[in-house]
């Protein structure tokens, strides 16, 4: 069914295009210059479907649906609309929800202008993290170091740098900092460093000793 040898023809915003089976609607759109906003998508990472900004309207066999284009595989005869009243509303409200946490993030400010989002619509909670997962997934999938991960569930979810690993890996890498749409990843790293291994950011050949269960403000302290 997703055999890349098979070619599929579909329609995106009135333009017809043919792509190999298994291609996502997002990729197909990008290839013909139709732009769909994304936040958690990255070409080097597995498609995530978390931010939902790339949602589009699709029509197939008489049924209309809203799907995330970064994950939805192309279908023969699919009709895709990337801008409709509903789609725009979904994107607007998502931006407003995220701006409650990071109102000044450049990409969010830009999208707010395009979709008419009000940065003050929802009650603010300045966590600055939009939980796009780019840092977590990049560190896991590309660097394969798993230094930063998610903890907790629901609105309590946050990213967390593992101090013992961050102490040896992060300073010489820093690649996730540039990916972060709000600059929070960088801030989280520095906070971890300040609390857990101040003044010891340079990479060392072996992992530091960990004195059992010594913590400061709940974060384990690394003692060398």
């Amino acid at each position, binding site marked *: 069914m997703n055999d890349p040898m098979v070619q599929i023809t579909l329609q995106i915003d009135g333009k017809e295009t043919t792509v190999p089976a298994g291609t996502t609607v997002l990729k197909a759109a990008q290839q013909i210059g139709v732009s769909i906003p994304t936040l958690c998508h990255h070409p080097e990472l597995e498609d995530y479907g978390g931010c939902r900004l790339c949602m589009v309207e699709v029509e197939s066999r008489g049924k209309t649906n809203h799907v995330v284009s970064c994950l939805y595989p192309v279908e023969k005869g699919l009709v895709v609309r990337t801008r409709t009243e509903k789609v725009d509303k979904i994107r607007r409200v998502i931006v407003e929800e995220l701006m409650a946490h990071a109102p000044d993030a450049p990409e969010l400010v830009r999208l707010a202008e395009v979709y008419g989002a009000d940065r003050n619509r929802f009650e603010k909670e300045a966590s600055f993290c939009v939980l796009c997962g780019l840092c977590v997934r990049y560190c896991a999938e590309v660097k394969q170091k798993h230094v930063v*991960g998610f903890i907790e569930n629901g609105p309590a979810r946050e990213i967390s740098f593992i101090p013992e690993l961050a102490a040896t890996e992060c300073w010489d890498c820093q690649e996730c900092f540039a990916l972060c749409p709000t600059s929070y990843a960088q801030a989280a790293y520095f906070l971890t460093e300040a609390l857990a291994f101040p003044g010891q950011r340079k990479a060392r050949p072996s992992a530091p000793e960990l004195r059992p269960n010594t913590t400061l403000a709940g974060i*384990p302290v690394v003692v060398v």
Partner: protein
Amino acid sequence: MSEQIIEGNDGIEGNDGIDGIIEKYRGKPGALIHALTEIQHENRWLPREVMQKVADALEVPFSQAMQIASFYKTFSLTPKGRHEVHVCTGMTCHLRGAAKLQEKVQELTGLAPGETDAESRFTFEAGSCLGSCSIGPELIVDGKHYGRMTPEKVDDVLKRYE
């Protein structure tokens, strides 16, 4: 706070129960949740270096182990008290006054849901529906159900537990 953690850690080294569990699942990343569940049951909480041992033995990244331990609420990353006091906050119990019951427990123990007191006597949990809706609202202490509870009866129940 840190004193509590160090004290709660006594007796962990050389613990056959935990080590036995880890050995059972060595090299099996798919058994992470099973392993953590058994250790939680055995030890009543998951100390950080036990988490590290589990991650190493089961070959999962430490951050993934921490994500799972913090995500699922049956796992506790802090030591628990001798007795678990649970107020059911399912929908029926809620309609029948579970919120007042919760307030009373909070008043008597000084604990918010999820907390353990300084003498490690009680851990207070407010959890969702346990299926005894017909006799709600309920207080469950160490698995024993006290149905048809009122705030006035709470003190008597808690007194039975040292």
